[in-house]
C-alpha cells in the first residue's frame, strides 16, 4: 500500500534539513523570566524554550481554528527533541515573519511546517547534547536523549534538559543537525488529544469573542445590504438616545494595498458599552443607502447567465490534449451533461470579530484569523506605521473553513479603534456573518464525452463557468483570473487521448472568497458525476471504469499556463487507485444490497493527498435521502496525529452531506436571502451519517487533510442516489421534494 513511499525517502530527509535551516534564523534571543521564582526559561530557537524545571515551551506557529495544529505541530517538535508530552506547554505565536507565512490555508499547516518543526526540535536536542558533552566531558557518541534528559549510556549518568538549558542557550548553532530515524518516533503516528481540550470542556478556552481589554468598547457596523453599496445619508439621533451608546459615525469604504480580503465595506458604526446596547443602538439607526450596481444582482438571473453559455466556447482554454474536435466529430457515442453548484456561506459558529487598540504609533490586536501576518501588514499600511509596531495576538477561532483568510473584520476593528481612540471589540452578528461572507463561488459545468466502439472514453470536454476568485479578491485587472478556479478539473488524472478544459468567468454581485478546498469543491463534483454518468450509460461498473482510466501506477505532471505550483500539477495514479480500491473493498463494492439501496464512488487528489469515498444510500418514497454508510479512504502521506486526521475527515464528510442536502445561498435585488442557521441550516446530530475512515499507512512526506476529504463526498452520495433510484442529481443541493 505504501510502495510509493519508499521511492522518495532520500528526498524527504534532504528537504527536511534545508527547510529547517531556512527558518531557524535566530536562536539567541533574550531569556524571559517566568512568574515562578528561581525558574528561568532558556530559548533554544524561535520555537523552543526550556525552563529550568524541565518544562518545554513549544511555540505553535499557526492559529488554531479547530483543525488541530496547536497539537500536531508541537507534537512534531517534541518528538524530534525527545521530550515527554506531559512536559510540553504550547505557546501561541504572535504574527511574526520569523514564523514564515503563518497563513492557515491550502491544507498546508502540517505539510508545510513539518520540516521546520522537526528541524527546530533537532536543533534544540543538539544544543542540549553539546551542553551535556561539556559538563560530562565524554565523547558525544556516548550521549543519548530520552524524555527530557541527556544520558551517558556508558554509566547511566544523566542531566535533565532543564539543568542543561542555560548552557545550551549559549552554544552556537551547529553546522549539521541530524534528524531522527522515523522508526524512533515517539508521538508521530500516535493519537494525541488536542491541547486545548481541558479548557474547551470547562468553558475557559479563549476565542475572539471572549477578548476583554481594559477600557474596551464594543462596536457594530450597519453595512449596506447590497454588496458595494454606500451610505447616502443617516440619522443617528435615536441611536444616541439609547443608554450605553457612546458614538455613531460613518466609516468610509477602504481597500488597502488592493487586497479585497482586507476590504472595509463601510457603513455606520455604533460604539457602545456592550453588545446589547450596540445592537439596540443599531436598530434605532436610520440610514438611506445608495445601493449601486449590484442591486440588480440575483441568483435567478445568474442562473440564466450561466445557461446562456451552453454550446459556446469558454473565454479561455485551460488545458488541451489531442484533438477533441475530431473525437466529437467522428465518434458516434456521445454523452453530454450540465452540473450546477450554488453559492455557499461558511457558517463559522463564532461570528466574525476582532479587537484592536490603536495608539498613535502602534497597534495591539487580538482575535481569530487564518491570516495573522496579512492583518499585521495591512493594518500597518493602513495606519502608516511599521509592521513590527502591529502586534497581532491569536485567539482560538470558532471555525474557519476559509472565511477567516479574509480579514476585513480585523481591518474594521483597527479603523474604528483609530477613530474612537480606545480599544474596540468589533463584533459581527450572525446575520452580518451570513450577509457579508466571502462566499464560495457558484459554478456551472458543461460536459461532453465521446466513447469509441469499445466503450472507451476517448474525448472529454469540460467548460467550467464560475466567478473568478482572483478577480473577486483583487482590485483591478488580473492576469490569470482562473488560477484558483480550475484545479480539480484541469489536472484531470485519467488517461484520455483528447481532452479540452475551458473556462469562463462571470460577474457575481456578492463577495466571493475561499471555501474549504476552493475549486475542488465544485470541479470534483462535476468530474466524478460525469464519469459515473458515462460508466452507467456504457453499462460499465463505475469503479472498473475509473480504475481502467487511471491505468498503471505512475507519476504524472502536466504544464498549465498558470503561475506557481498551480501551473504544474502532479500526481501519482497508483495512490489514487489505492484509495479507490480500499474504499471500494471496505464499502463492499459489488456485493448485493437490500432493495432500494445504492452505492456510489468518487475520488480526488488534492496536492499530495489522495481520497476516495463510497456512499451507500436510499431515498424514501417522499424523496428523503438516508445515508446508510459513508466510507473514506485517505492517503495523506505520513500521519502525525491519526485522531486529528480522523476529525478532519469526519468534518469534511459531514460538510459533504450538508452540501448535497442543505446548503445554498441565494440573492435577490442584490441582497443575500439567508440570515441565520434557520435558512442556512447546518447538519444536525440526527442527520449525521455513520462514517468509516481508513488511513493508508505511508512514509511519504505528510500532506494536508483539512480540505482533501471534502470534494469527493458529494459526488459519492449523488452517484449512490443514481444507483439507488435511477435519478441523476445534476444540481446541488438536492431538494427532497423535487
Amino acid at each position, binding site marked *: 500500500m505504501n510502495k510509493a513511499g519508499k521511492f522518495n525517502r532520500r528526498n524527504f530527509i534532504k528537504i527536511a534539513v534545508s527547510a529547517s535551516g531556512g527558518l531557524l534564523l535566530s536562536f539567541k534571543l533574550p531569556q524571559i523570566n517566568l512568574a515562578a521564582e528561581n525558574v528561568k526559561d532558556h530559548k533554544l530557537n524561535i520555537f523552543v524554550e526550556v525552563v529550568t524545571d524541565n518544562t518545554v515551551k513549544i511555540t505553535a506557529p499557526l492559529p488554531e481554528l479547530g483543525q488541530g495544529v496547536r497539537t500536531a505541530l508541537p507534537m512534531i517538535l517534541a518528538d524530534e527533541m525527545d521530550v515527554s508530552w506531559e512536559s510540553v506547554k504550547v505557546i501561541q505565536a504572535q504574527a511574526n515573519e520569523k514564523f514564515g507565512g503563518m497563513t492557515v490555508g491550502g491544507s498546508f499547516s502540517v505539510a508545510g511546517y513539518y520540516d521546520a518543526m522537526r528541524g527546530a526540535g533537532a536543533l534544540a536536542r543538539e544544543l542540549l547534547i553539546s551542553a551535556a558533552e561539556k559538563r560530562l566531558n565524554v565523547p558525544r557518541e556516548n550521549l543519548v536523549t530520552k524524555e527530557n534528559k541527556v544520558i551517558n549510556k556508558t554509566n547511566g549518568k544523566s542531566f535533565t534538559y532543564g539543568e542543561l538549558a542555560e548552557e545550551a542557550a549559549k552554544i552556537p548553532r551547529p553546522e549539521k543537525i541530524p534528524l531522527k530515524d522515523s522508526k524512533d518516533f515517539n508521538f508521530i503516528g500516535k493519537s494525541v488529544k488536542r491541547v486545548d481540550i481541558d479548557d474547551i470542556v470547562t468553558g475557559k478556552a479563549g*476565542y475572539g469573542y471572549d477578548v476583554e481589554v481594559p477600557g474596551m468598547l464594543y462596536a457594530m457596523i450597519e453595512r449596506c445590504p447590497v454588496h458595494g453599496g454606500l451610505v447616502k445619508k443617516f440619522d443617528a439621533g435615536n441611536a444616541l438616545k439609547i443608554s450605553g451608546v457612546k458614538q455613531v459615525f460613518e466609516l468610509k469604504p477602504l481597500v488597502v494595498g488592493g487586497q479585497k480580503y482586507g476590504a472595509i465595506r463601510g457603513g455606520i458604526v455604533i460604539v457602545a458599552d456592550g*453588545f446589547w446596547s450596540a445592537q439596540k443602538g443599531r436598530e434605532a439607526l436610520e440610514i438611506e443607502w445608495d445601493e449601486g450596481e449590484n442591486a440588480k444582482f440575483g441568483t435567478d438571473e445568474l442562473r440564466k447567465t450561466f445557461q446562456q453559455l451552453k454550446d459556446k466556447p469558454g473565454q479561455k482554454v485551460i488545458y488541451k490534449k489531442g484533438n477533441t474536435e475530431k473525437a466529437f466529430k467522428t465518434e458516434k457515442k456521445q454523452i453530454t451533461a450540465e452540473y450546477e453548484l450554488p453559492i455557499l456561506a461558511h457558517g463559522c459558529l463564532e461570528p466574525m470579530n476582532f479587537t484592536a487598540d490603536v495608539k498613535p504609533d502602534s497597534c495591539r490586536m487580538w482575535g481569530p484569523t487564518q491570516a495573522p501576518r496579512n492583518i499585521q501588514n495591512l493594518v500597518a499600511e493602513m495606519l502608516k506605521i511599521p509592521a513590527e509596531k502591529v502586534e497581532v495576538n491569536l485567539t482560538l477561532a470558532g471555525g474557519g473553513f476559509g472565511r477567516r483568510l479574509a480579514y476585513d473584520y480585523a481591518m474594521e476593528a483597527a479603523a474604528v479603534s483609530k477613530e474612537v481612540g480606545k480599544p474596540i471589540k468589533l463584533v459581527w452578528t450572525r446575520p452580518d456573518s451570513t450577509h457579508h461572507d466571502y462566499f464560495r463561488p457558484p459554478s456551472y459545468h458543461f460536459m461532453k464525452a465521446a466513447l469509441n466502439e469499445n466503450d472507451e472514453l476517448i474525448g472529454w470536454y469540460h467548460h467550467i463557468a464560475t466567478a473568478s476568485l482572483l478577480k473577486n479578491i483583487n482590485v483591478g485587472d488580473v492576469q490569470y483570473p482562473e488560477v484558483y478556479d480550475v484545479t480539480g478539473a484541469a489536472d484531470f488524472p485519467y488517461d484520455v487521448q483528447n481532452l479540452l478544459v475551458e473556462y469562463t468567468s462571470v460577474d457575481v454581485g456578492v463577495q466571493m472568497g475561499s471555501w474549504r478546498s476552493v475549486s475542488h469543491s465544485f470541479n470534483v463534483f462535476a468530474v466524478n458525476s460525469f464519469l459515473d454518468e458515462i460508466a452507467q450509460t456504457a453499462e460499465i461498473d463505475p469503479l472498473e471504469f475509473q480504475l481502467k482510466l487511471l491505468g498503471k501506477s505512475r507519476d504524472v505532471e502536466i504544464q498549465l499556463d498558470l503561475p506557481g505550483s498551480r501551473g504544474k500539477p502532479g500526481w501519482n495514479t497508483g495512490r489514487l487507485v489505492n484509495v479507490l480500491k480500499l474504499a471500494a473493498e471496505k464499502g463492499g463494492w459489488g456485493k448485493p444490497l437490500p432493495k432500494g439501496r445504492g452505492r456510489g464512488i468518487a475520488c480526488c487528489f488534492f496536492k499530495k493527498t489522495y481520497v476516495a469515498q463510497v456512499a451507500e444510500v436510499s431515498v424514501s418514497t417522499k424523496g428523503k435521502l438516508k445515508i446508510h454508510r459513508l466510507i473514506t479512504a485517505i492517503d495523506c502521506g505520513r500521519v502525525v496525529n491519526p485522531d486529528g486526521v480522523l*476529525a478532519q475527515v469526519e468534518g469534511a464528510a459531514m460538510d459533504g452531506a450538508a452540501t448535497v442536502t442543505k446548503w445554498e445561498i441565494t440573492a435577490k435585488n442584490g441582497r443575500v436571502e439567508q440570515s441565520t*442557521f434557520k435558512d442556512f441550516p*447546518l447538519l444536525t*446530530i440526527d442527520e449525521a451519517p455513520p462514517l468509516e475512515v481508513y488511513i493508508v499507512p505511508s512514509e511519504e512526506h505528510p500532506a494536508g487533510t483539512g480540505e482533501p476529504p471534502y470534494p469527493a463526498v458529494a459526488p459519492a452520495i449523488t452517484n449512490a442516489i443514481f444507483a439507488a433510484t435511477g435519478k441523476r442529481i445534476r444540481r446541488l443541493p438536492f431538494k427532497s421534494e423535487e
Partner: protein
Amino acid sequence: MWELLKVDKYFLRVNGKKHQIKTDGAKPLLWVLREDLNLTGSKFGCGFGICGACTVHIDGKAVRTCILAVSEADGKNIITIEGLSKEGDHPLQKAWIAENVPQCGYCQAGQIMQAAELLEHNSTPTDEEIDKAMKKNLCRCGTYLRIRRAIHRASKTLKKAKLDE
C-alpha cells in the same frame, strides 16, 4: 422599532454565587453572563436561539440564554459550563476528553450543558433519545458522532457510580 433601555435591578444566583445586576431587563441573559459577570464559557453563536452555543441550566432546565431576557431569569438558579463541576470532572466533561470530541470547540459548552440536562432525566439514553435531545445544538465542524459516543460513555460512568453507591 426602537425603544430606550429600561434599567432595573435583577438578582441572579450563578454557579452558587449571588449577584445583583443593574441592567436593561430586556438584555439577554447571555450578555449579562458574558459581559457583566465575565463568564465567557457560554458562547454567542446566533442570537436567535437556533444553535445552542449559549445553553445554560436555569433551575435545572437547559435554556438558550441569547434570547432569554435577564428579567425572566430574575431570582433563578443558573448553572453555566464554568459551574457544571468543581474540577472540570463532570462525567460528561471527562467523556468529552476521552472521545477527544471538540474541533473548534465553540459549540461544545452548549452541547455539554444540553447533554447534562438529558442525563439528569434519562441516565441511559438510546441513540434516538440522544438525537432527539441534542438535535437543536448545532456543530459546524462535524463532531456529532463523537458527541453521541461521549454521552454514552458518560452514561456508563453514571450507571457504574450508581451501582457502586
